[in-house]
Each structure stands twice: as structure tokens, then as C-alpha cells.
């Protein structure tokens, strides 16, 4: 990929992103959605330069969620790109650290018996029904998924019923779905 973006173009992009973000912070949902959409494209290419392809989308979502959760720490005199980049880099480092630890804990498979045992274990996990998988999640993930994804309630309604904040419901759904995927896959 050639990088011919001029200084003016970068500056215009920054101004545009910041405007959308500030409007979003004041409660303009459409501007906020547009900001997140534009940002995800930038973040995706930022991550593509640093990660293998299967991990990019996962980490992109992690970074978007982090941006969302930290949005009250932004100060308007600061470039929004510097703020986002610090968050993305932090999440990237976190990801690398977690992976280094994960790899260190996993011994390489030494013989065939171990390989078969692993297969067996995974088959058992997959037979469990959704309800039993859900039971393994903590309340703050299980309740949001139950209400939002299974009952089809809105985030607000769920927040009212569970006593969680709307933001906590959104985080719960996201983290919970990832945890479920991990349980079904039987790893991580």
C-alpha cells in the first residue's frame, strides 16, 4: 500500500473525526455512529500493519469498545487521533502480552494420546446446550445476553430490568458473546 496522504489531508481527516466525536459526546447518535464507522476503517488498517489477519477483527472490536468506555477521558484541545492511537496501542500491547502468556502455558502436543484426549474434550463441550453454557457466564454478561439476544429487548429495557447501566449492558453482551464463543470452541 502506498502512503501518499498529504499533511493537509491528514489534518482535514482529524478535524472531521474530532467534530463527529465531539457531537457524539454531546449525545448526537448519528454523528457518533459515523465516527465509530470511520474510526473502525482507520483502526483496521492500523492493526493490519501489526497483526495476523484472523486476530484483526477481534482486536478491532476490543479497541472500539475501549474507545467507547474511555470516551469521557477525551479533552477537546487534544487531537482525537493521538487519543485513539494511545488506546489502540495499549490494547495491542495487552493482546501481545496475553498471547505470550497463553503460548507459554500451552505445552506442544507430545504424543498421540494427548491429541485424542483433546478431541474428546471438545466434543463434550459442543454437546452442551446454550442454557448450560450461559450458566457459566457471570451475571453481568449472562443477563444482558439473555435479555438482549434471546428475548430481543432493547438495551435500555435491559438496563432497567437488571439495574445495570446501559453501557454495562453493551459491554456485557460483547464480552459475553466472546466468552460463549470461547466456551463452544473449548479454548482461550
Amino acid at each position, binding site marked *: 500500500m502506498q502512503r501518499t496522504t498529504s499533511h493537509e489531508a491528514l489534518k482535514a481527516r482529524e478535524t472531521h473525526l474530532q467534530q463527529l466525536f465531539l457531537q457524539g459526546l454531546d449525545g448526537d447518535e448519528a454523528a457518533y455512529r459515523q465516527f465509530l464507522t470511520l474510526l473502525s476503517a482507520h483502526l483496521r488498517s492500523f492493526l493490519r500493519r501489526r497483526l495476523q489477519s484472523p486476530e484483526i477483527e477481534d482486536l478491532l472490536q476490543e479497541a472500539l469498545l475501549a474507545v467507547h468506555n474511555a470516551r469521557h477521558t477525551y479533552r477537546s484541545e487534544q487531537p482525537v487521533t493521538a*487519543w485513539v492511537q*494511545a488506546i489502540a496501542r495499549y490494547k495491542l500491547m495487552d493482546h501481545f502480552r496475553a498471547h505470550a502468556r497463553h503460548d507459554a502455558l500451552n505445552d506442544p502436543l507430545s504424543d498421540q494420546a494427548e491429541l485424542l484426549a483433546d478431541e474428546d474434550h471438545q466434543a463434550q463441550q459442543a454437546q452442551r446446550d446454550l442454557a448450560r453454557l450461559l450458566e457459566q457466564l457471570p451475571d453481568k454478561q449472562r443477563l444482558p445476553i439473555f435479555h438482549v439476544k434471546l428475548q430481543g429487548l432493547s438495551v435500555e429495557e435491559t438496563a432497567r430490568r437488571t439495574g445495570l447501566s446501559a453501557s454495562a449492558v453493551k459491554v456485557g453482551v460483547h464480552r459475553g458473546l466472546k466468552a460463549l464463543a470461547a466456551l463452544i470452541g473449548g479454548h482461550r
Partner: protein
Amino acid sequence: MKTDELINMLANHAPPVDRQIVTRRFGTALVIGLALALLVLLTVFGIRPDIGQVAATPLFWAKLALPASLLAGALLVTTRLARPGAPVGNGWVTVAAPVVAVWLAALGLLLSVSANNRWALIFGETWRVCPVNIALLSIPAFVCVFWAIRGFAPTRPRLAGAAGGLLAGSIATLAYSLHCPEMSVAFWAVWYVLGMLIPTAVGALLGPRLLRW
């Protein structure tokens, strides 16, 4: 979940954000931290009995100036490190300047007296307990300050932890100087600084764990 779905979920009914909330949280933490440090001082150590006379001397206020100016500097650095991508910049100067100033003053004092009087000015009467007392006094403020930083989003948790520890240490030293009888700038330059370095080191050590988000 697809990324588009996540974006929709995050943007739907996202209420306006109160961006002053973290600053207020820091203010609360500082007030409570200082109050608790004073409370522990009064109940455990007590205020020095001659505080009435000594408060009339400029030296007493010079003694308070070290922790007070470090408190301001550490507060500036901590709040900057607590926000993603905010450069600390001249914040480092506000932390270094009080320490350099007190070291220069101590050096001047030590050079102005004869060699066999120097040790007394450095060690005073209470050097054995001073750093430990400051470190113990900093515990409640440490808890308050870390609670406040956790409301932000520090992307350099080790540095932010160190700055938060220094902030707690300077609050503790400010309170402790109301009890401490030592009036030699050389004493403060060594033992007060050492006392504040203990919570700073603990903060750097615990930062990555306590400030994770």
C-alpha cells in the same frame, strides 16, 4: 458479532457524556485522602506540641513547601498520565524542580557548616522512623488516588502508578510535617524524599495490575 453490529450497539441511545466527572472524582479523592492522612496523624502521631511558636517562623513554611509543591506537580503529572495520549511535557519539570531545589538548599547548608556538624543536620533525631512513618501515612491517600485514576483510562499504567504513588506520598508528607520535629533542610532532602519514594515505587509496582482496564 460483526463489527457493524457492535458499532450500532455502541451508538444506539448513547447518552451525552459528562466530561467533568473524572476531574470531580480526582478532587474528591484528594480531599478525602488529605483528610484521612490528617486523621491518622492526629490519632497515631499527634501534632508537635510547639506548633504555635514554630508556625511563626519562615523555616516551618519552607518545610511545608516541599510536599505542597510536589503535591501540585504529582497531581499534574498523574492527571495527564491518566488520559490516553496526553503528553506529560512540562509536567516532569514541576515534579523535578522541588526536589532539585531542596537538594541545592541542603548542599548549601552542609557546605556552610564545619564537617563534624554535617551528620547531625542530615540524620537529625528521627531518621530511623521518618520514611516508614511517611509510607504508612500514605496508605489511605494511596487508596483514594488509585480509585480516582481508575476512573480514567491510563495507557501507561506503570508510570501512572508511580505518579499516583508520589501524589499519595506528598499528601502524607504534608500531614507528617505537622508532627515531625526536624528543622534541617538536609534532613528533609534525604528522608522526606526517601519516604515519598516508597509509595512511588509501590505505585510503579502495582500500577500495571491495579490500573488495568
